[in-house]
């Protein structure tokens, strides 16, 4: 018997005896979640670029490409292709101009400020030939693209806050109070599109929406709000391409 197996047996027996004394046992668990998309046919991924708008303070196209590439490099088995970020707005406008010459289709808005403006640009994802050509250029990877709206947002209304007061005995206590507040922040609404680099067809798409609001007096840089919001939805994005583990606790009973 090795020392290691001896220790294991003793610890299991000790645990067995300990369990005889209590009825609840909180244990940490890691639940594996399978990827939403079957990527076994791909060894490489190209985060191509995004149609982005809403705020001039953050270049959501560049920042999103950079963030997703770095996340996939460390948290997925796919090899991330390093390539120039596509200026998708310009590409979409060019494609729209070419199409307008042939038909009566309306042009695309120059400035993207709302979700409606972004929707007009979504035609670019239906251009199968374009994505197929791009796929050929990079040896048929999985292509990740989409739209990103990162826009300032403000809302006023009543919020519940904790207020510290002293009771009749001089003790400090907290009381919930409802106060009217002006708050401002940002909305992040990305739509991720997953395109097959061999055929140019969209395999899957997913839309998220996150928002953050601060006290109107608080001055939070737009870039840090962008990362705060992206941080919330990254696990969901990563779970599209790779298995994830969700940590939690459960109670075992005797």
């Amino acid at each position: 018997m090795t020392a290691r197996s001896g220790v294991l047996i003793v610890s299991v027996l000790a645990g067995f005896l300990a369990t005889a004394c209590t009825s609840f046992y909180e244990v940490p668990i890691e639940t594996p979640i399978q990827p939403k998309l079957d990527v076994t046919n791909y060894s490489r991924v190209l985060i191509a670029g995004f149609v982005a708008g809403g705020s001039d303070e953050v270049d959501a196209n560049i920042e999103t490409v950079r963030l997703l590439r770095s996340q996939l490099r460390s948290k997925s088995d796919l090899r991330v292709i390093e390539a120039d970020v596509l200026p998708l707005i310009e590409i979409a406008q060019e494609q729209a101009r070419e199409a307008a010459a042939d038909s009566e289709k309306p042009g695309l808005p120059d400035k993207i400020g709302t979700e409606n403006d972004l929707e007009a640009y979504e035609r670019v994802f239906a251009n199968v030939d374009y994505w197929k050509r791009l796929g050929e250029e990079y040896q048929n990877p999985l292509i990740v693209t989409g739209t990103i709206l990162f826009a300032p947002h403000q809302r006023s209304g009543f919020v519940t806050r904790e207020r510290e007061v002293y009771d009749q005995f001089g003790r400090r206590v907290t009381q919930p109070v409802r106060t009217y507040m002006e708050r401002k922040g940002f909305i992040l609404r990305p739509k991720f599109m997953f395109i097959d680099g061999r055929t140019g067809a969209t395999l899957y798409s997913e839309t998220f929406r996150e928002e953050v609001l601060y006290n109107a007096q608080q001055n939070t840089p737009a870039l840090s709000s962008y990362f705060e919001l992206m941080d919330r939805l990254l696990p969901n994005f990563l779970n599209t391409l790779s298995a994830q583990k969700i940590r939690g606790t459960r109670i075992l009973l005797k």
Partner: protein
Amino acid sequence: MRARILLLAAIVALMGAAPALADVRSEAKAQVEFGIAVAQRGLWKEALYRWERATEIDPTYAAAYNNLAVAYEQLGDFEKARSAYEKALEIEPNNLTIRQNYDLFKEINDRKIRGSDR
């Protein structure tokens, strides 16, 4: 392998040494307790086996089904986890601990279903 044999020998010794394990619930409870001890050390497959045995020995033992469900969750078998939680709640519908575990499970499972529906 050797450690596993020794572990099994230890279980057999424990089973034989305890005369109180004679009735069905006691026998099932011994399996449950051993399952908890090994689960706390991360040996979830062994724990799963113990809790499966416990439910076979005593099919009315809600705690065994609850633990079995937790093990299935840890191993990623969501269908079996759901059915084990539901069985546990069928036996003890007012058990708040089982209900709480089940609610946490549903949160993750719903998220998984939402993802695969898109």
